[in-house]
C-alpha cells in the first residue's frame, strides 16, 4: 500500500475520538493524595472494616514498601508516582436504595451511555449486575433471586461485613500479599470489588456480571474480586470495563482470585476497553492486574478475555491445577493499536495428576503498538500424565507494529505432554480485496477478517458479551491496515 494512503488512514485513526470518553459529574468523597499508614487506616475506617482486615492491609503495605516495581515485561512506560494518587473515592450516596428510581440521575445517564442501564438489564437479559463505580457498588439487582439459591453476589465491602468468615478464609489464599508488587499494593489499599459465593451443588442460573468503571480523575482503582465455587457448583462470571477520557495516567491494579473446590466449574469472562490514550499514548489507563484461580480435584477454571483498551496492559490470568484431574483454560484476544502496549498471557501450574490445560492466544497488533504473549506452562514432579496444548497466533495490521511471543515451558515430570504452536501473519491484502470485490467496504472487511481470526476465543464468551466484543474489535481497529 502506498505511503500517502497510510498517512490518510493514520489521520483517520487519530481523528477518531474515544467512543466512551465521557465523564459523569458526581460529588466524590475523596481521600487526600498520597499513600501512608494513615491513608490505609482511613480507607479501613470509611468502610467500617474489622480489625483483622486493617492489620492485613498494614502488613501488605509493609511488604509492598520493601518490593520493587518489576522491569521484566516488554513494556515501556513512565512509572506511576504512587504518592500522587488518591486512594479512596466514593460517590456520595450513603443511604440504601429501595428501587432504581432512587439512583442518582447522573449515574443512570452514565449507565445508559454504556448501554447497561439496570432496568434494561433486569428486563431483557436476566443478568444480575453489580455496578461498580469509583470503587463503591451503587446498585445491585437480582440479589433476592440469587439469595433463594444461597448464592452470595455482592460488593467486597459488604462481604467483609456480612460474610467475614468466607472473606477471611479465602482472601489472599490464591494471590498471596507478597505475590507481586501490584498485588501487594492492591492488598494494602483495595477499596471495593465483587464477591461471589456459590454453595455446594448449585448451578448459578444466570451470568453474573460486574461492570467496572473508573470515574474519578487521578483516582487509582484497586479492585478486589473473590469468586468461590463450592463443591460441584457452577458459575459464569462476566467482567466488562470502559473508562472516561483523561489527560493523566490512571493506574489500575486489580486482584482477582478464583477458588474452584472439588468438581466445581468457574467460567470467568472479561471484555476490557479502558481508555488507551491518544495517538501518542498520552492519558491512557495503566492496567496491572493479577488474576489467578486455584482448581481442586476434578474442577475447572476457564478464563476468557478480550483486551482492547489501556495504554499499558500487564495481565496473566492463571490457573493453579492443584487437584487431580483438574482443568485450566485460557482464551485470549488482545488488540493493540496506536501506541498501546500489552504484555499478557497466562500461567498454568500443573500440580495434580492428569491435570490438563489449554491456552489459545490471539494477538492483533496495529499502528505502532507492541503486543506480547507471555506464558508459563509448569509441570511439577507429581503431575503424572499432565497435558498442555498452547496455540499463540499473532496478526499484524501494519509494518510498524510488533508482536512477540515469550512461551516458557518447565517440565519436571517425564510423563507430561506439552504442545506449543505459534503463527504470525500479516492481514492479507488478498483477503481485503476479495471482500471489496463482493461490495464489502474496507472497514467491514477488516472487521470480518479479524473477528474470523479471533472466532475460537469469541465463541467462548457468553452470547451478549460476544456481540459486544465483536463491535469492540471492529471499533478498535478502524482504519488500521497499512
Amino acid at each position, binding site marked *: 500500500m502506498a505511503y500517502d494512503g497510510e498517512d490518510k488512514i493514520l489521520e483517520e485513526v487519530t481523528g477518531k475520538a474515544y467512543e466512551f470518553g465521557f465523564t459523569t459529574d458526581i460529588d466524590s468523597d475523596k481521600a487526600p493524595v498520597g499513600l501512608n499508614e494513615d491513608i490505609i487506616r482511613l480507607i479501613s475506617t470509611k468502610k467500617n472494616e474489622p480489625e483483622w482486615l486493617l492489620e492485613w492491609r498494614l502488613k501488605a503495605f509493609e511488604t509492598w514498601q520493601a518490593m520493587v516495581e518489576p522491569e521484566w515485561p516488554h513494556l515501556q512506560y513512565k512509572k506511576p508516582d504512587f504518592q500522587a494518587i488518591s486512594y479512596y473515592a466514593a460517590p456520595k450516596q450513603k443511604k440504601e436504595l429501595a428501587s432504581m428510581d432512587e439512583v442518582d440521575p447522573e449515574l443512570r445517564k452514565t449507565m445508559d451511555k454504556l448501554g447497561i442501564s439496570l432496568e434494561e438489564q433486569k428486563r431483557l437479559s436476566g443478568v444480575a449486575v453489580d455496578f461498580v463505580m469509583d470503587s463503591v457498588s451503587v446498585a445491585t439487582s437480582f440479589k433476592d433471586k440469587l439469595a433463594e439459591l444461597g448464592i452470595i453476589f455482592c460488593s467486597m465491602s459488604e462481604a467483609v461485613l456480612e460474610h467475614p468468615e468466607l472473606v477471611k478464609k479465602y482472601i489472599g489464599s490464591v494471590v498471596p500479599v507478597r505475590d507481586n508488587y501490584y498485588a501487594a499494593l492492591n492488598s494494602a489499599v483495595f477499596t471495593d470489588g465483587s464477591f461471589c459465593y456459590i454453595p455446594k451443588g448449585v448451578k448459578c442460573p444466570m451470568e453474573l456480571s460486574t461492570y467496572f468503571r473508573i470515574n474519578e480523575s487521578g483516582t487509582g482503582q484497586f479492585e478486589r474480586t473473590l469468586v468461590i465455587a463450592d463443591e460441584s457448583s457452577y458459575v459464569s462470571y462476566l467482567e466488562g470495563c470502559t473508562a472516561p477520557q483523561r489527560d493523566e495516567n490512571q493506574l489500575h491494579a486489580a486482584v482477582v482470585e478464583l477458588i474452584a473446590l472439588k468438581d466445581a466449574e468457574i467460567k470467568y469472562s472479561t471484555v476490557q476497553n479502558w481508555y488507551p490514550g491518544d495517538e501518542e499514548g498520552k492519558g491512557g489507563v495503566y492496567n496491572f492486574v493479577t488474576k489467578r484461580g486455584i482448581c481442586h480435584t476434578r474442577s475447572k477454571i476457564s478464563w476468557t478475555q478480550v483486551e482492547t483498551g489501556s495504554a499499558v496492559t500487564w495481565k496473566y490470568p492463571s490457573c493453579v491445577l492443584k487437584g487431580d484431574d483438574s482443568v485450566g483454560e485460557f482464551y485470549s484476544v488482545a488488540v493493540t493499536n496506536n501506541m498501546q502496549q500489552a504484555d499478557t498471557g497466562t500461567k498454568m501450574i500443573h500440580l495434580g495428576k492428569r491435570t490438563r490445560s489449554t491456552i489459545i492466544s490471539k494477538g492483533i497488533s496495529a499502528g505502532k503498538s507492541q503486543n506480547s504473549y507471555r506464558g508459563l506452562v509448569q509441570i511439577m514432579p507429581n503431575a503424572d500424565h499432565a497435558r498442555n496444548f498452547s496455540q499463540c497466533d499473532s496478526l499484524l495490521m501494519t509494518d510498524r507494529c510488533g508482536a512477540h511471543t515469550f512461551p516458557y515451558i518447565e517440565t519436571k515430570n517425564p510423563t507430561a505432554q506439552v504442545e506449543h504452536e505459534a503463527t504470525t501473519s500479516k492481514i492479507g491484502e488478498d483477503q481485503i*480485496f*476479495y471482500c471489496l470485490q*463482493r*461490495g464489502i467496504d474496507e472497514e467491514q472487511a477488516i472487521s*470480518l477478517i479479524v473477528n474470523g481470526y479471533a472466532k475460537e476465543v469469541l465463541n467462548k464468551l457468553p452470547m451478549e458479551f460476544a456481540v459486544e466484543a465483536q463491535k469492540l474489535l471492529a471499533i478498535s481497529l478502524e482504519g488500521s491496515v497499512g
Partner: protein
Amino acid sequence: MLTIKNLHAQVEDTPILKGLNLEIGSGEVHAIMGPNGSGKSTLASVLAGREDYEVTAGSVDFDGTDLLELDASDRAREGLFLAFQYPVEIPGVSNLNFMKAAINAKREHQGLEAITAKDFLALVKEKSALVELSGRLRDRSVNEGFSGGEKKRNEIFQMAMLEPKLAVLDETDSGLDIDALRIVSEGVNAMRDAGRSFLVITHYQRLLDHIVPDHVHVLSDGQIVKSGPKELALELEAKGYDWIKEGIA
C-alpha cells in the same frame, strides 16, 4: 453494458495492457482467450479495481458509469462481479455471513433495507441448488479447506447470490475435473439473461463447449488481436496461438 477504449495498464512500471478495445452488449457472453502472459488476468483485475494495477490511459464505461472512477467495492455494488482464479480463504468467517454482508452492502447502496433472515435463507436455498453446493460447504468458513473445484463452485454460488450485471470469470475452468466443470457451466448458463453479460477468460477451449460464447476474442501482448464467432475458439484449439501471432507478423 461494457465499453473499453484504448485501455493501458501497468503493474510496477511494467506495461501489460497496451491499448485494449472491447465492447460487450447487454445479455452477451464474450470469451477472451490467449496465451500465458498476454494480459488476461490483468484485464480482470483492472476491471475489478485491484490497487496494484495502474491504469495509464483509456476509458471503461460500465452501463453509463465511468468504471475507473469507482473504487473496488462500489464497482461490485454497481453490479460487477469477478469470479476469482484463486478464490481467497477467510478463516473463521462463515460463507453465509460473508454473503449476507455482501448482499446488504449492495442493498444499502441501492437504498434498500437489509435483507430479512427469511428471504436470505430462501435465496441461499435456491442459489446453492444451482451449483449443487451442499449445506456443509455453505456453512463452513469462506473457502477454507475447500478443494479447487469446491472453491470454484462457491464463486459461482456467490455470483448467483449477488445477481450481477456483468460477471467476469477469470479462468474459472482451471483446476476443475469434468464433473465440476459441468456443474459450474450449468450454473453460469442458468444465469444467462438478457440483462446480464459475461466476460469469460480462459486458456482452453473446453470451457466454451459448455458455456457457449457469442463472441471470442484473442488477447496477445496486451491487445485484442482477433475477434470472431464461437468457431474461432475451435480454430485456436486446433491451430494453437502461434497461428495468430504469425498472422499478425
